[in-house]
C-alpha cells in the first residue's frame, strides 16, 4: 500500500493566520496611540501623493440661496430662511432654535478651527421678557451637549458655556456695549485645543478654556424673542 507523503511546509492557513495576526497587531498599536486605521492609511497614501483622502480646509456658507440651508438640521425648519443673501432665524418668543451642521465639521482636517461670521444682526421680534441674541454651537454632540458661544443682546453679555445634558455651566463672560445691539457684527471664534477665543473685528473679546468635548458639530442658534441674521459663515481648519 502506498503511504501518503507527509508535507512539512507551512500551509495557506498558517500564512493567513500570520497575516491576520500582523494586521491585528497593527490595528491595536494604532488604537493605543490614539490613531484610527483610516487616519494612518490616509497619512500613508497622502505621502505617496494620493488625493483620495483629502479633506477640505474649510467649509463656507454664503447663504445666497435656499440650498445653503439643506445641511442645517434641527429647530423649526420654517423659522430658518434666506433673506437678501443672509440666513435668518426667527424666534416665536417661546423657544430658542438651534440648527446643527454635522457635515461641515467632519469634512475638516482638524478639530481645531476658526468660525467667522460676517454681518450678524439681531432684532427684537417679540415684545416680551425673553432673551434676544445669536449663538454659536461648536464641538456639539447635539443641542444639549457641547459648547456654546452666546451673544445676548438683551443683557449685553457674551459668554462661553459648556452644556451637559441640557445643563449650562458658565465658562467665561464679558459685558459688551449696548450700542452693539444696533450694529452689524463681524465675529470670529478661534477653537484651538482646549482654548476658545472670541474676536470682534480682529479684537479679542473673550476667552475660555475647557477640555470636556474634543470634537463635534458646529451650529447656529437664535434666542426666543429675536430674529438673527448672518451674511456669510466660514469654518476654517487650523492645521498644526
Amino acid at each position, binding site marked *: 500500500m502506498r503511504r501518503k507523503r507527509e508535507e*512539512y*511546509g*507551512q500551509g495557506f492557513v*498558517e500564512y493567513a*493566520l*500570520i497575516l491576520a*495576526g*500582523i494586521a*491585528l*497587531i497593527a490595528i*491595536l*498599536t494604532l*488604537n*493605543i496611540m490614539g490613531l484610527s486605521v483610516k487616519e494612518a492609511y490616509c497619512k500613508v497614501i497622502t505621502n505617496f501623493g494620493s488625493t483620495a483622502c483629502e479633506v477640505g480646509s474649510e467649509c463656507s456658507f454664503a447663504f445666497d440661496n435656499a440650498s445653503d440651508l439643506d445641511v442645517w438640521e434641527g429647530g423649526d425648519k420654517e423659522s430658518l430662511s434666506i433673506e437678501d443673501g443672509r440666513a435668518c432665524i426667527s424666534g416665536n418668543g417661546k423657544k*430658542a432654535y438651534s440648527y446643527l451642521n454635522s457635515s461641515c465639521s467632519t469634512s475638516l482636517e482638524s478639530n481645531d478651527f476658526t468660525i467667522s461670521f460676517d454681518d450678524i444682526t439681531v432684532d427684537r421680534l417679540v415684545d416680551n421678557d*425673553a*432673551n434676544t*441674541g445669536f*449663538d454659536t454651537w461648536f464641538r456639539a454632540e447635539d443641542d444639549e451637549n457641547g459648547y*456654546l458661544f*452666546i451673544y*445676548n443682546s438683551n*443683557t449685553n*453679555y457674551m*459668554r462661553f*458655556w*459648556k452644556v*451637559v*445634558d*441640557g*445643563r*449650562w*455651566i*458658565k465658562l467665561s463672560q464679558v459685558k459688551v456695549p449696548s450700542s452693539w445691539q444696533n450694529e452689524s457684527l463681524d465675529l470670529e471664534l478661534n477653537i484651538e485645543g482646549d482654548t476658545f477665543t472670541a474676536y470682534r473685528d480682529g479684537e479679542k473679546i473673550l476667552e475660555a478654556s475647557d477640555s*470636556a468635548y474634543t470634537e463635534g458639530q458646529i451650529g447656529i442658534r437664535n*434666542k*426666543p424673542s429675536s430674529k438673527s441674521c448672518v451674511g456669510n459663515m466660514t469654518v476654517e481648519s487650523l492645521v498644526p
Partner: protein
Amino acid sequence: MTLQDSPSLEDFSDGVLSPPPEKPNKKRRITNIMAGLLVLIIILLGINFAQSNAFSEIAGQGKISGYAVDESNQPILVDIIVFGTNIRAVSDENGYFEVENIPSGRQSIIIAFGLIATEEVVIVEVGQNTELGTITVLTETEIDY
C-alpha cells in the same frame, strides 16, 4: 519505497527504528512566529483594555458625597451628573447627595439646579468616599436661553 527496498526484521535486531526525522526548521520557525504574534496580540489587547472605561470600572469604583446649598446657604435639591457616564443622582431635602459606583480616577461632577450647573473635578479613589463638602450652587445666575 518498494517492497524489496523495505527493511527486514533483521535490520531491527539491534533495537527499534530511530525516531522519525524532525520537522524542518522552516516549519518550526513559522510556529514560533505565530506563537510570538499571539503573545504580542495578548499584550496589546491588555494595554487597550487598560485604557478603556470598562477597565476603570472593573479596576475599582468609589463614591462621592456632599451638600448642595444656594447663595443663602439654604439646602437645595440638585441633580448630580457624572460627566461621560450614565450615572445620575439627586440630592435629598437637606441638600445631601451621595453617588456610588463611580469609576475611579479623575471625574467631572456636574451639580445642576434646574438648567444652571456648576462643575467639580475630583479624583475618585477605589473604595473611598470622596467628600466634596458644601457646594454653593448659583441659582440666580443669568442664563442665556
